[in-house]
C-alpha cells in the first residue's frame, strides 16, 4: 500500500493545482462537517427529551381525574371525577398486568419544615411504597416508606439528600431524628437521591395514609401511578385500556369519554418520541448525505477537468508504458486521498464543534430547552468514514475511466 512513488505523484499534482485542490477539499470538508454537526444537533434534541424521561419509569402509566364530557346512563355530562383509596384497591386487585402501584395525595399550602432552630420550605409528596420504583428514587440511607407505615398510619418521612445537607450538620445521621412538617413531627427513616435533578432531591416523602389522616381523614387520592408487568408497547396499551374500562365501571362514565380521566402512558409517549426522532434522524442523514453527494459531484467535476488538462501528460505516460490500470489507480488514489483527507478534517472539526459546544454548556452550566448533551455515535462515525472513502472512489471513478480511455497518439497531438 505505501508506495512512495505513488504518493510523490499525488503530492506533485496537488502542488501543481493548489486552488482546485483547496476547492475540492472544501466541498468535501463541508459535506462531512455538516453531516457530523447535523447528527450532533439531532442527538442533542433527542437527548434533551430522553433527559426529561430519565427519572420516571418508562413503563409507567399515570392516571389523573377529569370531568365527564358525555352523559352516561342517566348521569349528566360535566361531573367531576374523584379518586379514593377504593380506586387504589381496585387497580391493585382487579386490573391484570399492574406491577407497581402508588397513589399521590396532594397536601395543600406551604410546607415549612422545622428541625432544631432551622426552618426551611420544601416540597412534600405523600405516596405508597411502590412510588420508589415509579420515580427511580435511589435510597442512600435507611429505607423508603413501607406497607407497615401505610397500614399503621405512621408519622415517618423520607428526605432528599439536599434537605439533609441543608437541615443537618455535616456527618450527623438524620435517621431516627424528628423533623416537623406543618406542626407535626415525623421520624426520619430514610434518605434518598434522584437523578432527576435538584428539585427531586428537595422533596420529603410521607405515607399517603398519614397525610390523608392529618387532612381531616380524607379518603381521597389525587393521582394514581402504576407500572406494567409486560413492558412492551402492546402490553402497556392493554393495561391502559383495562384501567380505563375498570374506572369507567367504578365511576360510571362512558368508556369512550376521554375527558373523564386522563391517562398518560409513558411507554406510548416514549415510543412516539422515538418515532419522531427517528424521522428527524433520517431527515438529518438525508440532508447530510445530500451535502456529501454535492461535494462528491464537485470533486468528480474538478477531477474531470484535471484529467482533461492532463490529457497530454497521460498520453505520454501511456506511450512510454503506463497501463490503463496504473492510470486509473493514479486518479482514484488521488481522489480518495483528497476526499479522505478533507473529509477526515471535516469529521474532526464537526466533532470539535459538537463536543466543544457540549463541554462549553457543561462548564458554564448552560441549560437550553430542547438541547442536551449533543454527541455523535461511534457507529455514525464509522458510517461517515465509509461514505468518505466510497465517495472518494466514486468521485474519481468517472474521471479515471475517462483517463484510461485516452489514446496516446491523439493525446500527444494536444
Amino acid at each position, binding site marked *: 500500500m505505501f508506495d*512512495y*512513488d505513488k504518493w510523490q505523484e499525488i503530492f*506533485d499534482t496537488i502542488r*501543481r493545482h493548489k486552488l482546485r485542490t483547496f476547492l475540492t477539499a472544501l466541498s468535501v470538508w463541508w459535506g462531512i462537517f455538516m453531516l457530523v454537526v447535523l447528527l450532533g444537533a439531532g442527538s442533542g434534541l433527542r437527548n434533551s427529551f430522553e433527559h426529561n424521561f430519565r427519572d420516571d419509569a418508562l413503563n409507567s402509566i399515570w392516571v389523573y381525574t377529569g370531568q365527564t364530557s358525555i352523559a352516561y346512563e342517566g348521569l349528566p355530562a360535566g361531573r367531576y371525577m374523584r379518586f379514593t383509596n377504593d380506586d387504589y384497591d381496585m387497580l391493585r386487585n382487579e386490573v391484570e398486568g399492574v406491577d407497581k402501584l402508588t397513589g399521590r395525595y396532594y397536601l395543600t399550602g406551604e410546607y415549612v419544615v422545622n428541625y432544631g432552630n432551622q426552618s426551611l420550605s420544601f416540597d412534600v409528596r405523600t405516596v405508597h411504597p411502590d412510588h420508589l420504583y415509579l420515580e427511580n428514587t435511589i435510597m442512600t440511607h435507611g429505607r423508603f416508606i413501607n406497607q407497615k407505615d401505610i397500614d399503621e398510619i405512621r408519622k415517618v418521612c423520607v428526605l432528599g439528600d439536599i434537605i439533609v445537607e441543608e437541615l443537618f450538620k455535616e456527618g450527623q445521621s438524620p435517621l431516627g431524628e424528628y423533623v416537623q412538617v406543618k406542626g407535626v413531627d415525623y421520624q426520619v427513616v430514610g434518605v434518598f437521591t434522584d437523578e432527576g435533578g435538584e428539585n427531586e432531591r428537595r422533596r420529603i416523602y410521607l405515607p399517603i395514609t398519614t397525610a390523608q389522616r392529618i387532612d381531616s381523614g380524607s379518603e381521597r387520592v389525587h393521582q394514581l401511578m402504576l407500572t406494567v408487568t409486560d413492558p412492551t408497547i402492546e402490553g402497556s396499551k392493554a393495561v391502559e385500556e383495562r384501567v380505563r374500562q375498570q374506572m369507567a365501571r367504578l365511576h360510571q362514565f362512558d368508556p369512550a369519554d376521554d375527558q373523564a380521566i386522563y391517562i398518560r402512558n409513558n411507554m406510548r409517549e416514549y415510543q412516539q418520541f422515538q418515532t419522531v426522532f427517528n424521522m428527524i434522524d433520517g431527515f438529518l442523514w438525508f440532508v447530510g448525505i445530500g451535502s456529501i453527494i454535492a461535494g462528491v459531484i464537485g470533486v468528480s467535476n474538478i477531477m474531470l477537468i484535471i484529467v482533461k488538462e492532463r490529457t*497530454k*501528460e497521460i*498520453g*505520454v*505516460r*501511456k*506511450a*512510454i*508504458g*503506463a*497501463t*490503463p*490500470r*496504473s492510470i486509473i489507480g493514479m486518479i482514484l488514489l488521488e481522489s480518495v486521498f483528497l476526499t479522505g483527507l478533507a473529509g477526515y478534517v471535516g469529521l474532526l472539526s464537526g466533532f470539535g464543534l459538537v463536543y466543544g459546544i457540549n463541554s462549553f454548556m457543561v462548564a458554564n452550566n448552560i441549560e437550553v430547552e430542547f438541547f442536551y448533551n449533543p454527541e455523535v455515535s461511534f457507529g455514525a462515525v464509522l458510517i461517515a468514514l465509509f461514505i468518505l472513502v466510497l465517495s472518494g472512489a466514486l468521485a474519481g471513478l468517472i474521471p479515471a475511466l475517462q483517463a*484510461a480511455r485516452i489514446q*496516446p*497518439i491523439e493525446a*500527444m497531438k494536444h
Partner: protein
Amino acid sequence: MIKLENIRKSYTTGFNTLEVLKGIDLEIRDGEFVSIMGSSGSGKSTLLNILGILDNYDSGNYYLGDILVKNLSQTQAAKLRNQHLGFVFQSFNLLTFKSAWENVALPLYYQKIPRNERKDRALKYLERVGLLEWADHLPTQLSGGQQQRVAIARSLITQPRMILADEPTGALDSTTSHSIMKLFTDVNAEGITVVCVTHEHDIAEMTQRIIYLKDGMIEPESQRADAN
C-alpha cells in the same frame, strides 16, 4: 527482426473511409538504422505508430521479433512498448513539471524499479547525451535540442530493441538536427534498431536505408531509382 506483412490501415471519418496504408510489406533487421520518407499525408506517422504499437492496423501481420503484435489489449500493448520500444517525438513530449532526470526515469517507474536505481540510471543516460549538469532542470529551462536529448535519454533508459522517432529534428535548426542524428548513429552503433521518420533528405542520408512511402505503399527501390 521486425517484419510487416501486408499491413492495411484505413481511417473512417463520418461517411468517408480513407485508406492510408494499402498493404505494407517491410523487414527491418536488428541493429538497422532506417529512415522513412514520403510526402505529407503519405502515412509515415501512421506506419510508425503501428510499429510503436500505439495504433492498431486493420489486416496483415506485424512481428516484433517472435511476437505477433495483433489484437492486443491496452495493457499488453503498454507492456510491450515499455519493454521493447523507445519513442522520440517531434514535440519532445516531456512532462513539463518534472525535472530532466525525472522525465528520463519515468519509463522505469512503470517497470516498478526503485527510485534510487531509477535516478542512478537516469543520470547515466543524461551523461550519455551530455546533459548531466542539467539533470535537475525543468524542460522549460532547456533549449529545443537539449529537450530532444532528454527525450532520447528517456527512450534509451529501458534498453529497448528499437527506437522510433517521428520527425525528431522537425523542430530543430540544422546544426542541432545533425548533432541529434549523430546521437542516433551512436545509439545505433550499440546495436539498437532505429527507425526515423523525416522530411529532410540530408537527415535521411545519415541513415543506412531510406524507405519511401507513396500512396500508402512502399516504393520499390528500382522504381525510385528510375524516377530519380
